[in-house]
């Protein structure tokens, strides 16, 4: 079985799968990042993604344009994020409760609307859908290795990568981004300089909605061409883990998402090896175990640097002296 796995790594199938499975996590966690940076931890990623996934495919299939679908998915997510802001910032509902509420809401409202508008229970599978296009790069697409790595991906894969740069520039190169970061660090400090803390937190939630909206629409109109109830199946929570793992910066988020994407790609490959002796459950656990390991390695290394410098103390002369 290993030879089969190896050959797929060699022939770069894994890269293709990696990019595809990284994208929704990446986009969703960028969304999570922006609100997290201002101190609003958005646990509602899952629900927002579902709503966007449904909205974009619904509008996309009715209008016949994927672009309109994606934009509507994003708009709805932004609106929902504002609603989260209303409940959390204005009504002072705990952000975690708000997040879980959005998750439950997203799951239910999509099922409800699906049956209301499309008379479909559980899944909506429009035919002739205009999906988010695939980008084939001329010339490069014919070169074997480069072609496989760079060509033939969904437009949203590229948008996802661009968004990393966009968020980086926004957070570090614009005053707005510095304000956002300052608010997350010390709202009093920001407030004392006249920065409208509340309003910026709303705006951060709105950005959250934008990116999560893109992630959702990619799931229903890029990765697949359908909406299935609860189709996000935990992606939002994985994204949340990536937000926290990624050390609150877009590059960390990218790395975190890639680790996840890699684990998922590996899972996919391991799952399709004939007569694999590994029980499927263990393969399914892979992304989660990898995350824990990544986190522990990261944390131990951070701590290790401190412990190293102290180790002399425990072996040094101080501890050699017996108490009198």
């Amino acid at each position: 079985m290993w030879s089969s796995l190896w050959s797929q790594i060699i022939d770069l199938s894994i890269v293709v799968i990696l990019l595809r499975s990284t994208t929704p996590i990446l986009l969703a966690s960028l969304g999570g990042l922006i609100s997290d940076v201002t101190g609003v931890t958005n646990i509602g990623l899952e629900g927002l993604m579902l709503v966007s996934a449904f909205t974009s495919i619904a509008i996309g299939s009715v209008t016949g344009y994927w672009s309109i679908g994606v934009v509507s998915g994003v708009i709805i997510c932004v609106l929902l994020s504002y609603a989260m802001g209303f409940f959390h910032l204005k009504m002072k509902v705990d952000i975690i409760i708000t997040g879980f509420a959005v998750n439950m809401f997203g799951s239910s409202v999509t099922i409800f609307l699906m049956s209301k508008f499309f008379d479909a229970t559980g899944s909506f599978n429009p035919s002739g859908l205009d999906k988010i296009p695939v980008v084939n790069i001329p010339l490069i697409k014919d070169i074997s290795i480069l072609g496989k790595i760079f060509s033939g991906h969904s437009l949203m894969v590229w948008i996802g990568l661009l968004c990393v740069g966009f968020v980086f520039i926004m957070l570090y190169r614009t005053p707005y981004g510095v304000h956002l970061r300052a608010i997350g660090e010390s709202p009093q400090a920001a407030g004392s300089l006249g920065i409208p803390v509340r309003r910026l937190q709303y705006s951060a939630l709105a950005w959250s909605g934008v990116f999560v909206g893109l992630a959702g629409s990619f799931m229903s109109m890029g990765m697949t061409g359908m909406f299935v109830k609860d189709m996000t199946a935990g992606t939002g929570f994985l994204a949340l883990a990536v937000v926290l793992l990624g050390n609150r910066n877009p590059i960390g988020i990218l790395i975190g998402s890639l680790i996840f994407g890699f684990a998922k790609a590996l899972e996919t490959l391991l799952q399709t090896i004939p007569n694999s002796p590994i029980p499927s459950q263990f393969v399914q656990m892979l992304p989660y175990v990898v995350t824990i390991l990544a986190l522990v390695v990261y944390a131990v290394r951070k701590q290790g640097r401190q412990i190293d410098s102290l180790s002399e103390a425990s072996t040094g002369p101080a501890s050699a002296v017996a108490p009198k």
Partner: protein
Amino acid sequence: GGNKSSGDKGGGNGDGDGKSGGKLSVGYYVNATLGDKSFFDSVKRGVDKAEKELGYEVKTIEGGTNQGDWHAGIESMVSSGKYDVILVGTSQTVEMVDELAQKYPDQKFIFFDDVVDQPNVYSMTYSQSEGSFLAGAFAGLVTINEELEGANPEKVIGFVGGMDIPIINDFKSGYEQGAHYVDKDIKVVSSIIGNFADAPKAKELTLSQINSQNADVVYQVAAAAGLGVLEAANEKGVYSIGVDSNQNDIHPGSVLTSMMKNLDSSTFRALEMFQGGELPFGTHEELGVKEEGVGLAQDDLYNEHVPQSIRDQMEDITKKLADGEIEVKSTLK
């Protein structure tokens, strides 16, 4: 399959003294949510048909996925006393219904997909292994077929299941038996999604089966997530087999057939018999290929896209199954 009768014909109350005056009422408890495009939806279709054609009053309650809720959910339907007959199913609720049937001996139940041995319960089960045997044989014929454009010379077929649990493994086992009946050398690649909702992952797994293992026909047993399987096969120009209800029209020409548990027609049939007062409560019917409880969806699309040779062979195999010439082993027994 067969018709094992384990009790005398219990009284159906088809004489019209229904509890809601005149009309008979049926309560359908879904121990999940609707919308899997398969199992529970199929029963729902049968119930809806009964509402339209037999004049039943129908109430469907979705119990959700939390198993802890189901007992209370079913019991509250029973204790409300509103329903002449309650329709509920799956092996996950056997004990609950068993207990409730004893506690409320006047309440009639129609139980599907497993057996509850009580005098006020009529049970019907579906041999998914027999049905999947057909699917496996079909897949085997497709992958070695030379007429079909999407079929390649490699003898590899795919299976994508929702979870690694006994019922899914029963499907899988039947599928493998069928494929090996056609050709011993066929390799079955099997992947498990881990839930019944993650369509993107189902699609990813299927793509990988097709791309790296050269599977050219994939059978999905993953409820709503399985739609991802069908889409992947369609995109790649290979074939797939739907499940539970007729999914042939989702991607015509790619979804060549579907393994159907005909819960709709058997539900309708049971309700029809109930209305006529002739439903044999206290008995259990196993509906296999012979009873047409399970079978492949052989509709116009099937006839249009499946080569004659395969159709002929399938007819032959179906006949052998019905006659008991071929025995399918179920992992559940």
